């Protein structure tokens, strides 16, 4: 009996076992999935919590509900991988041996990496929304916020869902308008990038949307520390940005055990081949989802498309054949822009986001790089799709723009 061990039962791990269990014979393959707790979080939903659109119940469900029969779910802390011995030790002391290993333990916000962030102002005037706890605390802070400088901040790339801080600002703008206090609030976006976003066209469009809303952009700002007393962000080149309410996206890092096991880069992400997601170091180790170092957005959509490729390849791999599928880096993400609208970005390794239309029978077409209400419907629908379709490893009813035969219509 062979053993496939999957570490992490978030989006990637859950999709992986759902995609592979039906395709691996029960009497040949045992599959085990490990996570530290029994709460599956729909992380894209964190964005809507500060503004009271979603509550805890919308974003948390027990993991077991999404784990298929024939997969054993083990709840334990992962402590270390020994890739030579092909074993994984757990917090309880248990040791699991594997034939094939999938690392799907994601990436997590690390406020401890920025000096001063976890000071006395933490969760008072210094916030984050990349954890459920943080999003709930921010909701509370927003409720009593009476105006002043609201600063959204990105510490360092890469982060999961790189558009999320922009979305937070767009929603904050709409939120303060609704409350009739927009004039009392100064909105600022502070980023280490040289513009609102990474690729030129999307950066230009998104910068335009910031400007339209009167949101100031402070770019090329690499934070050195948070000055808790003065309530200011301080950069390495000694620029200061004052805040009354700071919402920062802390440095995102892979799990500590990845580094302990000698598998991580400087941010503890696992270095993999960009087309097969296989470790550069070990032929029976793969890393899927946010845990790897693919040069593309860390997003649920990218995870979904890459897990599909991985599942096809895995069957080749275990039969000793060359892996025939190659991931093209496809990602799409809806950018919530407030007031019931959203923008859709669609891109891959070769093609940066560009304007156009994205066909979707029944609901679409979605309009790429433009603000529309249909795109907003798409963003909300994503929650339903996530729980009911994506996690179960079923195909996403969003066509693969550049791979299948349902190409995007690009408006010249």
């Amino acid at each position, binding site marked *: 009996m062979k053993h496939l061990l999957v570490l992490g039962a978030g989006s990637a791990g859950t999709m992986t076992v759902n995609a592979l269990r039906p395709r691996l014979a029960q009497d040949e393959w045992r599959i085990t999935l490990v996570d530290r707790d029994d709460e599956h979080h729909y992380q894209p939903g964190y964005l809507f919590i500060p503004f009271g659109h979603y509550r805890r119940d919308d974003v948390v469900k027990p993991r077991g509900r999404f784990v298929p029969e024939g997969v054993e779910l083990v709840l334990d802390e992962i402590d270390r991988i020994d890739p030579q011995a092909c074993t994984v030790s757990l917090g309880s002391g248990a040791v699991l041996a594997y034939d094939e290993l999938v690392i799907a333990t994601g990436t997590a916000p690390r406020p401890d990496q920025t000096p001063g962030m976890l000071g006395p102002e933490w969760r008072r005037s210094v916030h984050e929304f990349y954890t459920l706890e943080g999003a709930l605390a921010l909701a509370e802070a927003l409720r009593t916020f009476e105006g002043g400088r609201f600063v959204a901040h990105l510490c*360092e*790339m*890469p982060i999961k869902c*790189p558009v999320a801080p922009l979305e937070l600002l767009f929603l904050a703008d709409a939120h303060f308008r609704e409350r009739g206090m927009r004039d009392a609030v100064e909105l600022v976006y502070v980023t*280490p*990038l*040289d513009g609102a*976003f*990474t*690729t030129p066209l*999307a950066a230009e469009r998104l910068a335009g949307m910031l400007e339209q809303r009167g949101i100031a952009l402070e770019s*090329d700002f*690499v934070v*050195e520390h948070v000055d808790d007393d003065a309530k200011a962000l301080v950069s*390495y*080149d000694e620029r200061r940005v004052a805040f009354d309410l700071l919402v920062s996206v802390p440095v995102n890092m892979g799990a500590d055990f990845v580094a302990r096991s000698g598998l991580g*880069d*400087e*941010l503890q992400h696992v270095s993999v081949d960009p087309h097969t997601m296989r470790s550069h170091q070990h032929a029976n180790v793969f890393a899927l989802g946010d845990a790897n170092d693919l*040069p*593309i*957005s860390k997003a649920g959509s990218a995870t979904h498309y890459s897990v599909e490729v991985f599942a096809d390849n895995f069957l080749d791999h275990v039969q000793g054949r060359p892996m025939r599928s190659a991931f093209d880096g496809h*990602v799409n993400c809806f950018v919530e822009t407030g007031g019931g609208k959203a923008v859709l970005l669609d*891109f891959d390794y070769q093609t*940066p*986001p560009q304007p156009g239309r994205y066909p979707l029978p029944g609901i679409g077409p979605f309009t790429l790089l433009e603000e529309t209400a249909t795109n907003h419907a798409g963003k909300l629908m994503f929650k339903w799709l996530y729980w009911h379709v994506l996690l179960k490893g079923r195909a996403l009813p969003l066509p693969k723009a550049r791979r299948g035969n349902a190409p995007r219509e690009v408006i010249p």
Partner: protein
Amino acid sequence: MLVTIAGRPVHVNEEGFLTDAGEWDEAVAAALAADIGLTLSDEHLAVIRFVRRDFAERGTSPTLRRVSSVGGFEIKRLFVLFPKKPAKKMSYVAGVPKPIGCV
């Protein structure tokens, strides 16, 4: 696009970044540096050599964090050596692509 830098033909993109790291040498580096107002010291060159070595090994330009944590150069110092936009400037002078803070 083909241009002449330090008296030799070199391929660059629209932003002036070298498209073939193999066409780089220290004379080219000095000219690129001068172009953005820098005079290269040994300290600059030590950073540049790390950036090139890391690019050769991994195929991507190192981020600021990587130059600091793997290369061992302090970020604060990098901001002094390559003011305002160190990640971009280091890559520019080192003749490697502009680092994309992954989309």
